[in-house]
């Protein structure tokens, strides 16, 4: 069991869990729930992209992968974040 706790993958899982709980707390809106709120939206989308990169790099092991795979998958996460923020921003 201790070998699992010392494994870097456990640290990644802990970070993913902490970001998820924090983004859920942010998403509750603290009084501004279910109204347009750019700060909440940008925060939760950026945190989702960060979690996506952690999953891609560590769980999918793309950090060890060839350059084309890194470009494609990290590009997917960052490109998607930019597009989602762009289309959100155009309507706020």
């Amino acid at each position, binding site marked *: 069991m201790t070998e699992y706790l010392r494994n870097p993958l456990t640290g990644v*899982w802990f970070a993913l869990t902490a970001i*998820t709980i924090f983004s*859920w707390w942010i998403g509750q809106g603290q009084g501004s729930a279910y109204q347009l709120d750019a700060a909440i939206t940008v925060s939760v989308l950026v945190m989702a992209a960060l979690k996506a990169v952690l999953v891609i790099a560590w769980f999918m092991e793309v950090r060890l992968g060839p350059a084309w795979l890194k470009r494609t998958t990290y590009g997917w996460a960052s490109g998607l974040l930019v*597009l989602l923020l762009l289309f959100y921003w155009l*309507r706020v």
Partner: protein
Amino acid sequence: MTTTAADTTPRPPAGRAGYMPGEPGMWFFIIGDLFIFAVYFVAYMIYRGQQPELFLHSQQFLSPGIGVINTLILLTSSWCLALGTEAARKGNSAAAFRLLAATFAIGALFPLLKMVEWVPKLAAGHSPGENLFFMYYYVMTGLHLCHVLLGLVIIGFMLRHLRHRASPDIKFIEAGAVYWHMVDLLWLVLFALFYLMR
């Protein structure tokens, strides 16, 4: 169950760049799936921008508590699977089997909770035909649920493979693992789009 053949098990090139886990065919499928879902995500954002009040109003009827628990379920199952893949590479089939069994057991909670979430909403009249938000919600989370169910079947085959093979085919284990991690990855975006953003 067999735990031998550690020396014959293919190992990843630890610390060396350029290693691609799994099969190229699986990556082709995964990248295609990621881009198809990306189109859905962007389309959702465009339609949301056209009717923000409707989407915000409809969001109130979702269950963010179930959404966050399902996120933690998928992240934890992915963590077990990543540890299991490492164990399989080291030739420790017994540990790999236990970790994949945990992956399956935890992952199987996701569709159960999805039913706990969906059934009361449908009973309350929030069906896909109610409005564009609910149409997107049911179609996209439904498509994702199909991926989860397929992933559970794949993990079942991986468990059978580990039980019956003295020397596990690590490429097969890796291919199944990257598929399951992709399912996790897609849910992270769905969770932010449907439950959290405002």
